[in-house]
């Protein structure tokens, strides 16, 4: 069979298999290889809540989706162009993500009665013609071929049958790397690094990778391969210090960068909770005196230790998910009253309660803004993509110090696990080393900086400044505890004003399109990619749509109002405003409350990111109706 090679702007691949099949590993390796090869990428991991559900079960399906592009890709793709399904259960669960006409590569060795039954198939989809009319079905005896590799090399690789079978993910990866024209040399360094502690697997996996590649090249199973042009050449990659990072890793790197620039010691306290745990682990892996991590006995102890560290002159940070944030609110409130700097990262997951621990949602916005008792304002920010986590935490940390306040950074499960390229040399607002207050004369603990309204930060242990702070209300401006009525109202207003002032130092919101038109889509957090692509698609079709993406949820940024205003003739700048969220309408509620705008909402709460098509279809519906 003669192969044709087609150039394409982007291609979406989805691996799906059993939790024990090494799906995440295979997908991750392909993403890394594409990055090294100079492409833009975006990934999405979709895996179960249990560690190892029963083999072949529907509950055990783990998926990895990856879009490779020659320009920036904003999402991991609505639908896959190519899907590899390792067993019937994976096929059942993942098929809805494969586009019609897409290539469906199936491991035919697992489509046996036992496997089919576990996936609730009454008949075998390989032979009952249910797939052939809609997809290009490619049957690969993956398990057999992998075993053959080891027989053929005739060496004693010291692997047992189970370990040999597990290498089939690298065989499949090899096949896909041929389809996407990623030469196997790209993977060599990656495989050697990944398996450095298990050397016998290095050769095994390299051999399977190579065999899979040649199977595609020499075999007759696949007619076309795809070539995605590079965005970056190798020199560019090295100069910009680009690396492929997950959202959690990007945030860890950002915190470290802030610690170095501010010359504060970073004190990260945490408690394991999905999907925040890997962020803490990434910080714990940093080997530098300016970083200390502490695993506490629960979330309350974690934020307590972080607050204590900030009180003592370090920079206290913690990371958690929704349930942990609920536990942390009381000590956060102590931070509000004592006016201490802290960053609390909430990697949101589907709730309420234990919910869907490995699925993503954006439903903690109102908790972040209003969950503490009393009038308790804090700064709330969100990252809009994995790489954006880097600059978001740096900005949040800077604001926490400047305004002497806890700052909540909202991320989510999708953003935390998903990965893309990060350029660490990007421009960040300058961070000055922190200077502690030392002027004893006329010192008042709660005297306020004229510009920020922040109180002075005295380094604990400085002679002459001995005094007690805490949760009781403070006398303005001495900081002694006070139960006076009018003083309390003054202090409530001061704390509120201080947080509102922070908006003067915010980075700009992200806007795309004309500043007036038929439809304005507003979003926050990880919906950025899908909204942006839908908007660009609509703009290309001549529709009058703009996209505003907020990085700051409280206070709202100063550049928001102009889009919500009415023009001189008394009409709103945008005929319609829709707020797109993975919740029941939380930003929607806050916008309407503060700006009295008649915004509508588009919500999806299935624990997954929006598809571009869901938003695009909504745009069409809205604009067709009004025209």
């Amino acid at each position, binding site marked *: 069979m003669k192969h044709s090679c087609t150039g394409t702007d982007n291609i979406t691949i989805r691996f799906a298999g059993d939790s024990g099949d090494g799906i995440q590993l295979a997908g991750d390796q392909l993403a890394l290889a594409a990055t090294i090869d100079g492409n833009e990428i975006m990934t999405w991991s979709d895996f179960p809540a249990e560690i190892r559900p029963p083999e072949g079960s529907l509950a055990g399906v783990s998926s990895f989706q990856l879009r490779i592009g020659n320009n920036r890709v904003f999402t991991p793709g609505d639908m896959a162009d190519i899907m590899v399904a390792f067993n019937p259960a994976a096929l059942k669960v993942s098929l809805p993500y494969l586009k019609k006409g897409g290539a469906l590569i199936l491991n035919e060795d697992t489509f046996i009665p036992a496997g089919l039954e576990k996936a609730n198939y009454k008949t075998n989809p390989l032979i009952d013609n249910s797939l052939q009319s809609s997809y290009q079905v490619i049957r690969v005896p993956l398990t057999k071929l992998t075993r053959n590799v080891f027989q053929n090399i005739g060496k004693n690789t010291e692997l047992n049958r189970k370990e040999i079978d597990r290498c089939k993910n690298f065989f499949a990866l090899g096949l896909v790397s041929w389809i996407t024209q990623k030469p196997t040399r790209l993977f060599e360094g990656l495989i050697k690094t990944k398996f450095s502690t298990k050397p016998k697997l290095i050769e095994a996996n390299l051999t399977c990778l190579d065999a899979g590649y040649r199977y595609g090249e020499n075999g007759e199973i696949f007619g076309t391969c795809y070539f995605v042009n590079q965005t970056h050449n190798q020199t560019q990659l090295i100069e910009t210090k680009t690396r492929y990072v997950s959202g959690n890793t990007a945030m860890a790197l950002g915190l470290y960068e802030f610690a170095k620039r501010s010359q504060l010691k970073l004190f990260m306290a945490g408690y394991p909770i999905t999907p925040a745990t890997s962020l803490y682990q990434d910080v714990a892996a940093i080997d530098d005196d300016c970083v200390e991590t502490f695993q506490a006995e629960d979330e309350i102890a974690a934020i*307590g230790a972080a607050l204590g560290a900030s009180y*003592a002159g370090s920079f206290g940070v913690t990371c958690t998910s929704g349930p942990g944030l609920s536990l942390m609110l009381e000590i956060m409130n102590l931070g509000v009253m004592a006016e201490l700097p802290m960053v609390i990262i909430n990697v949101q997951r589907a709730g309420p309660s234990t919910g869907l621990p490995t699925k993503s949602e954006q439903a903690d916005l109102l908790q972040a803004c209003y969950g503490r008792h009393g009038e308790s304002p804090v700064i709330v920010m969100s990252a809009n993509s994995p790489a954006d986590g880097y600059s978001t935490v740096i900005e949040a940390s800077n604001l926490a110090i400047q305004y002497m306040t806890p700052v909540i950074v909202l991320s989510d499960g999708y953003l935390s696990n998903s990965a893309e390229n990060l350029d660490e040399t990007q421009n960040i607002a300058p961070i000055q080393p922190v200077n502690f207050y030392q002027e004893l004369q006329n010192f008042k603990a709660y005297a306020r900086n004229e510009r920020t309204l922040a109180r002075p930060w005295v380094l604990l242990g400085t002679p002459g400044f001995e005094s*007690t702070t805490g949760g009781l209300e403070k006398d303005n401006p001495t900081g002694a505890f006070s139960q006076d009525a009018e003083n309390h109202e003054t202090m409530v207003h001061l704390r509120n004003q201080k947080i509102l002032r922070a908006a003067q130092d915010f980075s700009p919101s992200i806007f795309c399109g004309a500043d007036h038109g038929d439809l304005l889509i507003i979003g926050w957090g990880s919906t950025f990619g899908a909204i942006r692509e839908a908007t660009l698609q609509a703009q290309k079709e001549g529709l009058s749509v703009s996209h505003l993406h907020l990085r700051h949820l409280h206070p709202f940024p100063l550049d928001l109002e102009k889009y919500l205003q009415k023009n001189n003739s008394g009409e709103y700048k945008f005929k319609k405003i829709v707020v797109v969220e993975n919740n029941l309408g939380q930003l929607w509620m806050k916008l309407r409350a503060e700006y009295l705008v008649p915004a509508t909402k588009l919500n999806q709460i299935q624990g997954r990111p929006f598809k571009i098509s869901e938003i695009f279809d909504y745009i069409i519906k809205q604009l067709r109706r009004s025209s």
Partner: protein
Amino acid sequence: MTTPSTVPSRLDFLGPIAPRWCLGCGYFGCFKELTSVFAKSGVPREKFVVVSGIGCSSRLPYYTKTFGFHTLHGRAASIAQGIKKARPDLCVWMVTGDGDSFSIGTNHMVHLLRRNPDIKIMMLNNQIYGLTKGQASPTSPIGTKTKMTPHGTDVPPVNIARLALASGASFVARAHDKDGPFLEEILLAAQNHQGSAFVEVLCNCVSFNDGAFQSLTDPNLQAQSNIKLRLGNPITFGAQSEKGMALREGELKIVDASASDILTHDPTNSKIAHLLANIEFGQSPYPFGVLSVA
């Protein structure tokens, strides 16, 4: 400002606000001895940090002229550990109460003691919730009747010393509020201990639990009811030290002081420490002093 002498006095550690506890509260004595210990410690004033939770006990930091943090109910242990980790050069004292540390705060207290950071803990135990006006605490004797427990509490109280030891505490001591010099001795030992130093102080709550420790603190009854443990001294009690403790058949027995096997107190003997800790509140005599050093 320190007074013009080379050794600070406890007056140098008194803050601008005089303590506001009820007249007759046992905490006044504790405050006096703690500030004396600060003055005798050799640690400069600015290096102290007093961290408290919530309760009458926890108002103490406002009354000392040191850095202080009045935190949240049950959470002083968490915050104190963060402070100590960030600034190992500072001397961190945690002041707390029986409810604060052994109801809501038990979890954090157990883990603090397990980790053994160099934090000194003065736990003021009045066997009641005073600031909220008289509810039972985890150390209230079984059957304690309050408005919240009108039929009397139906569970036995926590044995504080045993729980501290079980958590791995490297220093466990007990005192009461009516023997100032002995309390100061114990607090000074805590100050000088390397590691977590846990001191339980029985204190009278004049408003909501008056007289709870009468049999232990009354000057006429102290000699009979208190065993004052001191390193290297025989374990004896009584007006003429006529009684003592011996270890017989694996148990502590009260014997005549003339017996040949009277125990000499050695707080590093963990077997004896556990037996002493197992003596429940209400039994007489009741041990005071440094029970255990690990």
